[in-house]
C-alpha cells in the first residue's frame, strides 16, 4: 500500500487548478489536496478557468490543471486543443465520464498528459498528478525524489537508499522514464519510442537490455523493476515511512 510522499527538498509545492463543475467532487478534491499540502484552486467553467490562468500572464502560475470534460460552457477537449495551440506547457490531466478508448485517444491528442475516467480512485488521481509532475521534472533535467530514489537530472546521478548508483547514460534515461510513470506500468512501446526520440534507434530487445542492466544495478536495493512480459516495466520503490 502506498503512503504519501515525505516532503523533500526536491519536491516543490504542487500548485493545481481544478476545472470541475460538480460541487461535491470539487470540494472533496480540494479538501484532500489541501491536507496533502498542495495548493489547489477550483473553477467551475472554462471561462473562469481561462481567467484564472490569465490572471498572472507570463508567470507559470499553476503546475498542473485537472480538467473535467463535461463543463457547462463548452467541450473541454476543444478548449484544450485551442489552448495548447498557444503553446502553454502546463500539464493537463483530464477527468471524464467518457470511458471509450476513442475519447481517450482524442483527449491525449488534444494535448492532455493523462486521462482518468470517472468514477476514479482519488489515490489514483494523486498518483497520476505526481507522475505527471515527475515526468516534467525528468524531462527538464531537474532533481526529484521518489520513495527511496533520488534522481539528480542535472548531474546524471541517482541514489537508492542513500547509495549512489553507477549508471551509464542510457540506463539513467531508462530510470528517468520509469520514475515518470511509477508506480504504473511503463509500456514497452513508450520506452522504445522515448529512446528513439533521443536518437537511439533501438529494437525492442535493445530496450530490454538496458532495462535488465538497470535491474541488475538495482539488485539488493529497495527498488525493483518488474516486467510484465509483452506489456512493459514497472518500477517498485520502497517507501520511506512518514515522520
Amino acid at each position, binding site marked *: 500500500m502506498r503512503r504519501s510522499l515525505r516532503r523533500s527538498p526536491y519536491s516543490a509545492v504542487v500548485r493545481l487548478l481544478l476545472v470541475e463543475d460538480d460541487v461535491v467532487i470539487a470540494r472533496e478534491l480540494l479538501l484532500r489536496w489541501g491536507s496533502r499540502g498542495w495548493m489547489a484552486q477550483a473553477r467551475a467553467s472554462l471561462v473562469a478557468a481561462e481567467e484564472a490562468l490569465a490572471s498572472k500572464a507570463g508567470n507559470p502560475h499553476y503546475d498542473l490543471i485537472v480538467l473535467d470534460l463535461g463543463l457547462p460552457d463548452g467541450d473541454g477537449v476543444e478548449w484544450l486543443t485551442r489552448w495548447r495551440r498557444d503553446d502553454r506547457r502546463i500539464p493537463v490531466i483530464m477527468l471524464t465520464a467518457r*470511458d*471509450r*478508448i*476513442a475519447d481517450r485517444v482524442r483527449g491525449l491528442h488534444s494535448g492532455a498528459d493523462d486521462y482518468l475516467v470517472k*468514477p476514479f*480512485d482519488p489515490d489514483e488521481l494523486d498518483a497520476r498528478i505526481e507522475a505527471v509532475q515527475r515526468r516534467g521534472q525528468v524531462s527538464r533535467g531537474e532533481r526529484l525524489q521518489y520513495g527511496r530514489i533520488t534522481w539528480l537530472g542535472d548531474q546524471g546521478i541517482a541514489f537508492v537508499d542513500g547509495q549512489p548508483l553507477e549508471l551509464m547514460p542510457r540506463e539513467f534515461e531508462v530510470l528517468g522514464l520509469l520514475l515518470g510513470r511509477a*508506480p*504504473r*506500468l511503463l*509500456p*514497452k*512501446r513508450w520506452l522504445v519510442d522515448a529512446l528513439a526520440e533521443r536518437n537511439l534507434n533501438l529494437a*525492442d530487445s535493445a530496450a530490454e537490455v538496458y532495462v535488465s542492466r538497470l535491474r541488475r544495478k538495482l539488485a539488493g536495493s529497495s527498488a525493483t523493476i*518488474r516486467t*510484465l*512480459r*509483452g*506489456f*512493459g516495466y*514497472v518500477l*517498485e520503490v520502497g517507501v520511506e515511512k512518514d515522520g
Partner: protein
Amino acid sequence: MPGPRRARWLKVDLLLRLLLPLLVIVAAAAGFGAYTAQQLTARVYDRWLVDAARSVAAQVRFEQGAAALDLPPIAESILLFDDNDRIYFSVEQGGRLIAGRAGIPLAGDNESRIARGTAYDSSFDGQPVRVARVTLEPSDTAAVTVLIAETGLKREHSAQELVTIMWPMLALVVAAGLSILLAVRGAVRPLQVIASRWNERSPVSLQPVGDEGVPRELLPFTAALNSLLARIRGLLARERQFAAVAAHQLRTPLAGLQLGLARAAKAADVEQARAVIGELSQATERTARIVQQLLALGRIDPEHRGDMNFVDCDLVAVAEDVGAAYADQALAKNVDLELAAIDRPVSARVVPDLVAEALANLLDNALCYTPAGGRILVEVHAHPATIRVSDSGPGIAEDEREAVFDRFVRGRTARGDGSGLGLAIVREIAALHHAGVALTDSAWGGTSVTIEFAPAQRVDVRSS
C-alpha cells in the same frame, strides 16, 4: 435518395390523370365531329345547287343549233326563291347570254365535282357566292353552260347550328368530371378515415393497427406499420428489461453500501470504521464496473449497430493498450500478466473500441478468478487474427460453458459480486464482428477464451 420535395396530393394526382385525358378525348371528338358535319352539309348544299342547275339545263331547247331556255316564270320564281339567300342564274352558249344575269364567274376556289356538275367559291354582285356549273355539250352545236350562284348565309347558319351539337359534349364533360371527382373523393376517403382512426389511438399505444376497412392495396402499408410497431415494442421491451435489470444490479451493491455505512457509523473505534470503509470502497469500485459494463452492453445493442465504424486496426496495439490498463491490478494482486504476440502488427477489420471492451472484460474476469501468484497470458495471433486470454484460475465446468455467455449468468465457481455480464459482452461483440468465441481449458487448468476473427471477413452490419 431523392431530394426533399413537397408531398403530392393523391387526390390531385388522380384527378389530373383522369380529367386531362377526358378533356382531350372529348375535345378531339367534338372537333372531328364538327369538321365532318360541316363537310357533309356543304356537300348536301352543293348537291342541291348542282341539282338546281341541272333542272335549269333540262329546260334548254335547241332550235337549229341555237339554245333557248324554256323556263316558265312560275318555275323561275320557284328556282330563285329563298328565305335567306340571294340566288342568281345564267344560261349562256359560247359567251352569249341566253337567260338570267350576266357576269357569274365561270370558275373559282374549293372546286368540287358533284353528279355531272361542279361547285366552287367565288364572288358575284359584291358578295361571296357558291356557284354550281353544269355544261351541256350537244354533238352538233356549241356547249351551253348553266350557272347558279347562291350567297352563303344558309351555309353560315347551318355551321352555327352545328355548334349546338357541342352542348351535349360539354354536358358529357361536366357530368364525367363530376363523377370522377366524386369517385376520387370516395376512393381517397378511406385513407383519411384510416389515418384518423389510427390517430385516435392513444399516442403511447404501440399495439398493432387493425386492417378492417383497409383497401387491399393499402394492406402492405398496414403490414409495414405493424412490423415497425412490433420492432419498437421489442426495442422498448428490451430497454425496459435492461433498465429493470440494471436497477436490480445496482440496487444490490447500494444495499450493501448502506448496510456497510450503518456498520461504520456504529463502529466502536476509528480503526474498525476504517476497515468497513475500505470494504465499501471496493464495493463502490465494483458498482462502477457494473455501470460501465451496462453501458457497454447498451452500446452493442442492435439499434446502435448502424453507427459502427469498422476500421483496419492492429490487434497487438489494442492488446498492449488494454493490458497496460490492467497492469496495476495484476501487480497489486501479484498475478503474472503476459502478452505473447508476434513482433509485427496483426491487422483485422474491427471496431477498435469494442474489441478493447471485449478484451477488457476477459482480463477483468481473468484477474477476478486468478489467485495471487497465478498467471494470465494474452496472446495475439495472425492468420486468422485471434486474441486469446488464458488464466490459471479455477476454470469453468464443461456443462456451464455455454450458459456463462448469457447475460447475468455466473458460473458455480463465481466469486465476488460480478455482474455476470462480462462474457455476454464478449460474445455479443464477437458476434458483431462475425468472430468465433471458444471457451476451453487453459494449460494451467484455468479458463482460456479465444476470439477468432473470420479471415477476410466481410462485415456488413450497416444495413440500409
